[in-house]
């Protein structure tokens, strides 16, 4: 197995940088964290698949030297489910934005969690649709303005990590692009988990995030993550966003259960 490859070797040599992402975007930080986590887990590039849907985060697989597939909007987890069942030996990482994972792909998200299929799902949550021009997403907090909520969002936002927990995921963690070292660790633990692992990452969209005091200022957004998140559940109860490993439990994974079924069937057949 290929191990100890330098970090830059995980980037595609012929891929044209700069990336499609805007200056100050948080997705590059998440991509770096994924590379470091894959390296820490000593996974070979041939043994890793990265599947994405549509949106800014959906463009990530282009840059990474894995087996990569950019699928249709919202369906990355369903594509990944098929690939993982065909190639259980591969580590399958699914990268999605909040709109991709929780709106158009919300059904697949809860069912992947319920099935507890052995995928590592990374949700880059910038709480807005970036690629299409700053529309409200299912993760936009109430009151926040967006292109399609000029008077402020009147709906409530999904708590993505809690949705994953309630739907049955084995491992759920949340971090931010400010807490980059913590993020590496959570993704590495997600890769290790035998079951559905979700890492939600709060990320900045300097172009379309319209909170007063942060507009156009990625540093202000990162500082906001620093000041408004906590690893202390008590402080989270009084309005801060909880970071950390929220769920880590042992549940049978789908692929494992399926292969047990196949083995039992073969024994019955006397094969």
């Amino acid at each position, binding site marked *: 197995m290929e191990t100890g490859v330098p970090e830059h070797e995980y980037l595609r040599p*012929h*891929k044209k940088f700069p990336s499609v992402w805007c200056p100050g975007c948080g997705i590059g930080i998440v991509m770096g964290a994924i590379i470091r986590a894959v390296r820490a887990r000593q996974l070979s*590039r*041939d*043994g890793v*698949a990265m*599947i994405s849907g549509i949106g800014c985060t959906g463009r990530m*697989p*282009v840059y990474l*030297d*894995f*087996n*990569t*597939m*950019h*699928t*249709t909007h919202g*369906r990355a987890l*369903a*594509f*990944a*489910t*098929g*690939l*993982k*069942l*065909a*190639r259980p*030996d*591969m580590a399958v990482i699914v990268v999605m934005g909040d709109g991709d994972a929780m709106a158009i792909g919300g*059904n*697949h998200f809860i*069912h992947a969690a319920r099935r507890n299929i052995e995928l590592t799902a990374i949700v880059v949550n910038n709480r807005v649709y970036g690629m299409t021009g700053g529309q409200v997403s299912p993760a936009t907090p109430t009151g926040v303005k967006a292109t399609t909520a000029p008077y402020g969002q009147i709906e409530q936002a999904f708590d993505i990590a809690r949705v994953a927990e309630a739907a049955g995921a084995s491992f759920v963690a949340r971090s931010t692009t400010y807490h980059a070292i913590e993020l590496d660790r959570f993704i590495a633990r997600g890769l290790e988990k035998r079951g559905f692992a979700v890492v939600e990452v709060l990320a900045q969209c300097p172009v379309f995030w319209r909170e007063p005091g942060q507009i156009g200022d990625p540093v202000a957004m990162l500082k906001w993550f620093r000041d408004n998140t906590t690893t202390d559940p008590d402080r989270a109860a009084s309005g801060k966003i909880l970071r950390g490993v929220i769920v880590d439990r042992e549940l049978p994974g789908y692929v494992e259960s*399926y292969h047990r*079924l*196949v083995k039992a*069937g*073969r024994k*019955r*057949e006397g094969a």
Partner: protein
Amino acid sequence: MANKRSRPTSPARAFARARLMQGNVAIAEGAVAAGLGFFAAYPITPANEIAAYLSRVLPRRGGVFIQMEDEIASLSAVIGASVGGLKAATATSGPGFSLMQENIGYAAAAEIPCVIINVQRAGPSTGLPGGPAQGDVMQARWGTHGDHPIIVLCPSTVREAYELVIHAFNLSEQYRTPVILLTDEVLGRMSEAVELPLPEVRVVERPRAEVPPEWYFPYDNARGDVPPLVPFGQGYRYHITGLFHDKAGFPTSRLDEIQAWQERLFRKIDGSVDRLARIEEEETEDADTVIVAYGSMARSARHAMRQARRANKRVGLVRLVTLWPFHDAAIERISRRVKRVVVAEMNRGQIVREVARVSRGRTQVVGVNRADGEMIEPAEILSAVEA
């Protein structure tokens, strides 16, 4: 067709080998015979027997069966499994087929082999779940957004359903494309005697890459019209996308790259019409009228043709086995010979438009149509033949 392995069989021996088989089960068994490794579906009438059969059989053979959360997820998982190297299929009916359209386009553009079985029922909308129809002919051709080529096959008997599902897998691998098998409620749920295995059916495996990873391009326009697809995890790391892409699979907006890819995509299927498009003619040599039909409707049409022959009328039958790509040349040839073409189909007139387009006014083209969930009876076809 002559075949070395086929030998004369006594009726008694044939009967001993024959099995009474339901159309949907024949499709499931045919898929397994073709090497099906992965099947994902969502419950829907009248296709359910396919999933029920495969959920029992695939795990015992080391294959994968999974019931997904909807039809969109089903085809997504099928494409993912195919990229993982398995022969993969899904089965559905009208409403589910509508949901699959976006991913059919993805599989066509990204050139991922897969088979989609649509046991048609009467629509639009929820329609008549237990009533047969052929209303998805144009949807199968044009249902996804954007221009794309597609292969659509349409069996008329249970035996042919078994054979054509194998053929569908073969074509999907040979041409790196989604292939749609259009059947209907009548064929899906009727039972007929089938002698298995079919002696003349062969199974095609996915072509392998002939070059090392550093020379491999999954969309290489210079390597024939169908460059091989290497499954993920075999050391050939590359990118797949639904965006317009270059030969390496990366998104592109360069016109020269887009045009070369698009030309090849169409050429590989439309350029093979003669090989792809199967048409069967019965009693057409001296015919002045032909009935064009496909799927289970061809059975009713054949009955009508024979009745007309018994009354000494010169009527023939043209049965379309491949619906898409449409065999323009064959239909044109026929339209030159006959005075009238009667197209009988369980919809409000879909293939009849193609026949009229190709005939260009050389012959009279008449449609016999029904879309109310009932088959068209031979008498209804005959009255159009005789009118």
